């Protein structure tokens, strides 16, 4: 399956669940609604044409307007790769855990929780990962995070 065929296939069989975004990137990016996440993830993994059995990477980003969570997945048997993301607001952001579909998400979700303050529902083991156990200075990867000894680079 080529990249165009993959995009067309996803657009037709995931209609209404995965929307193609035009973000001017080399590869297509889809958007999923937070409520549909688990169902879409499961179907992407189990679809016999796709078999997305491998989670390459997932992580949040703060664009200053909203929070985004991006999932990059691949298929080890079908040689396919795709990305999709979901958009969250700053008020009590929360996503479903995808660990039942891809166990690899376990640490990525722990990391996302402590660095961005995104709640992960039904995660099997939500402990801090990278930050010290007694960390109390908020969520450091948010753009408005600040600390007394944090020096921003001057505008160029």
């Amino acid at each position: 399956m080529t990249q165009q065929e993959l995009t067309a296939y996803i657009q037709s069989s995931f209609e209404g669940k995965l929307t193609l975004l035009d973000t001017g990137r080399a590869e297509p990016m889809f958007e999923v609604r937070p409520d549909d996440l688990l169902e879409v993830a499961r179907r992407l993994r189990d679809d016999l044409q796709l078999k997305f059995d491998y989670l390459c990477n997932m992580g949040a980003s703060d664009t200053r307007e909203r929070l985004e969570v991006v999932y990059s997945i691949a298929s080890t048997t079908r040689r396919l790769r795709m990305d999709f993301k979901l958009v969250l607001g700053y008020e009590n952001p929360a996503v479903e855990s995808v660990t039942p579909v891809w166990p690899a998400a376990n640490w990525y979700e722990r990391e996302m929780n402590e660095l961005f303050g995104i709640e992960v529902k039904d995660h099997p083991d939500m402990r801090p990962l990278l930050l010290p156990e007694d960390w109390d200075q908020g969520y450091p990867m948010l753009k408005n995070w600040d600390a007394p000894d944090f020096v921003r680079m001057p505008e160029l």
Partner: protein
Amino acid sequence: MPELRTEEFQINMGPHHPSTHGVCRLLLTMDGEKVVEAVPYVGYLHRAIEKICENRTYHMCIPILDRFEYVTSMSCNYVFSLAAEKLARIEVPERAEYLRVIMLELNRIASHLIFVGTTAMDLGALTPFLYGLRERELIMDLFEMTCGQRLTYNYIRIGGVSRDIPPQFVPKCREAVRIIGGKLADYEGILNENPIWLARMKGIGYADPQQAIAWGVSGPVLRASGVKYDLRRDDPYSIYDKFNFDVAVRWNGDNYDRFLVRIDEIRQSLKIISQALDGLPEGETRAKVKARFKPPAGEVYVRIENSRGEMGVYLVSDGSEKPVRVKTRGGSYNQLQFLPEIVRGRGYLIADLVAIFATFDVIMPEVDR
């Protein structure tokens, strides 16, 4: 006579334990001498590299990312440059691509040589460590004559490489390829008849292929379980489709196969380097890239085959001079979160755990970032 009572107890292995290759704490639940459960605690080397990168220009990110996975800095340089080039749609000159492949493969060999040495040292054999570092020195010399650095290279830049190779590089590199190729049999010879080595390696630490894929394990660890998945072949980047090489694969999924697969990979990398040296074209080594580099707004995830598995960067640009988000992904991260699954309930000894940790080739700065 009172009845003997036994119970499980917990013990910390690390953070400062010589076999954890950095600073990693494994909380072990023990039943006598047997490991029941191993839970990794990480973060001791967390330097907030991703946050630092958001606060720098694109060019300034590359030397920071050198420290992301310092055993193969070339890959860190390369994966970030590749992401930035994809965003800005930069065409890289052909000579630069050849030089990049040569450097990436030399770095892969250097990393695998360290793997052979440290794994043997963790199991009590010191000689292979000296052998491995002796051959690695040839590669370090090549890097030093090219970019002046021996560990954090900052050589591969957005649009190409920082400078052309010196004239003596090609003959020296051919000589290094010849010497390393001839020494590989020595490593296998000294280790594969060592009963202690074999007892800790054969049949220990079996990784089930389906489970490994689900946990995001990649690279030599996955290929030792019989999954023929190599991004150089399956998701080709740079000019790897021009070279003739085999994907090293082994089938037993134990410590021993993880060692053999890496020795095979060194042979394949030597093959790629020889072909790249033969085909090395003349020409420019860097596309024109502005000092005030501003890629158009967009986002991209790129991934390459590093010596520890898939290395990736998710890069978000808003059209300004600084990236909005640099999310790095390294093979060690997934290998380490998979470790408890391999150990749980199999009744391994701590010495077996040391061998499993070593053959996973986990490097902590890549996990903690």
